[in-house]
């Protein structure tokens, strides 16, 4: 996978994805190494991010590499009207690998086409966020011991949540049964369901959280964003219908793990944090190992 950009999760075959997950396990055992000491990674964040940016930068630093870049577009030539094309062509000269988040959809594909160094998409608008998907897969295999034949429940904003879309598509390779819990307004789009149907997998749709979770091995919570609603009253009604608390978790499978791409607002009660089924902060930590594995693989170091 040397020099192979990762823009969409489907750019990597199932085998390539599994190789990254295997490699991530090695980095989890030994996260501090010096294999990247001769490498410079450009971290270009045109919009704010906490976990993704810092976990990439942490991953590079722990492997001895150097990071250049910016965490918002405000202090860059973009502000002066520089095109993305020129920004990428310039920065490709200064680095061995580009990690980019940009609110414009398709910008990562475009960057990967014109850049002389490989590009990792760290989120392009509502389109793709493939490293989140890899770390979600890693978190699932780590907690369940397998990716195959699991029941995965997705809860919240299934319409706009890009992490949900990419993970659903990726899980279609593993004979997953999907339990989709959302308000009617925020159902999983048909373009994503198409992937489930193509593989003849089973999915169930619910509007009540309690109906879905007794089946689940993994409960993937997401944030419902206020700005998606035209009627603020509708938002107030819906946001409180998907709050996970400890008593809801009583009637669930032993092996259930609760995941969340974070940030969380109020959809998981903080008293769940100490529940052994809560996994979202470990999930965020897994992001470091997965990103180490991905970068080492793209740079040809592993």
């Amino acid at each position, binding site marked *: 996978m040397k020099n192979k950009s990762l823009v969409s999760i489907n750019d990597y075959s199932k085998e390539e994805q599994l190789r990254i997950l295997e490699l991530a396990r090695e980095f989890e055992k030994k996260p501090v190494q010096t294999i990247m000491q001769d490498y410079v990674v450009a971290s270009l964040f045109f919009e704010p991010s906490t976990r993704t940016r810092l976990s990439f930068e942490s991953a590079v630093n722990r492997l001895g590499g150097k990071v250049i870049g910016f965490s918002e577009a405000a202090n860059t030539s973009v502000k002066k009207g520089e095109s993305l094309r020129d920004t990428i062509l310039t920065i490709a000269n200064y680095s061995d690998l580009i990690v980019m988040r940009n609110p*414009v*959809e398709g910008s990562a594909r475009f960057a990967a086409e014109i850049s002389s160094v490989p590009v990792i998409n760290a989120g392009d608008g*509502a389109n793709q966020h493939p490293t989140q998907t890899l770390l979600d897969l890693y978190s699932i295999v780590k907690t369940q011991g397998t990716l195959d034949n699991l029941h995965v429940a997705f809860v919240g904003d299934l319409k706009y949540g890009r992490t949900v879309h990419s993970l659903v598509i990726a899980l279609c390779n593993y004979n997953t049964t999907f339990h989709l819990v959302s308000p009617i307004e925020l159902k999983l789009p048909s373009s994503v369901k198409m992937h489930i149907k193509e593989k003849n997998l089973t999915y169930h749709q619910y509007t009540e959280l309690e109906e879905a979770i007794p089946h689940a091995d993994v409960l993937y919570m997401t944030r419902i964003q206020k700005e998606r609603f035209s009627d603020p009253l509708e938002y107030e009604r819906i946001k409180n219908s998907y709050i996970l608390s400890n008593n809801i978790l009583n009637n669930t499978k032993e092996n259930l793990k609760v995941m969340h791409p974070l940030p969380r607002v109020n959809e998981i009660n903080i008293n769940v944090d100490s529940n052994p089924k809560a996994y979202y902060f470990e999930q965020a930590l897994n992001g470091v190992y997965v990103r180490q594995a991905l970068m080492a693989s793209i740079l040809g170091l592993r």
Partner: protein
Amino acid sequence: MNENLKQLKVSAIENGTVIDHIPAGAVFQVIRILKLDKFDDMVLFGTNLESKKYGTKGIIKVSNKYFSPEDINKIALVAPHASIIEISDYGVTAKKIVEIPDKVKGIVKCFNPNCVTNHEQLSTKFDVVDKEEIRLKCNYCEKITVKNNMEFR
């Protein structure tokens, strides 16, 4: 007799290509797609002509020009039933129909206002995911542009 009169509404060409059965509203789009507005030989066209099959139609006749299948298939998005007739010495030498291509480059605008193709200077690229309904998947933002929101660049 009638047939002959109709033919004469757009005069015959000696050599070149006749593009017939264009939907009446799409003649100017076809002209733009094939860049005939910048063509330097004779181009004749008519629109809102009577058609037995479609009610009305448009026709374009291009002198001394033969199109590659790749070029001519670009018009399939706006004129899916067009016939392409090649003329040599006032006689028909070949008759073809257009085919919807697998990929569409340039021509169509991505309907997603937040797509990079609407922000940067670069040409659009689509995979044709449905040839019946004409659904185009953007290679960049991965959104689907359908016939109803299709705009031509």
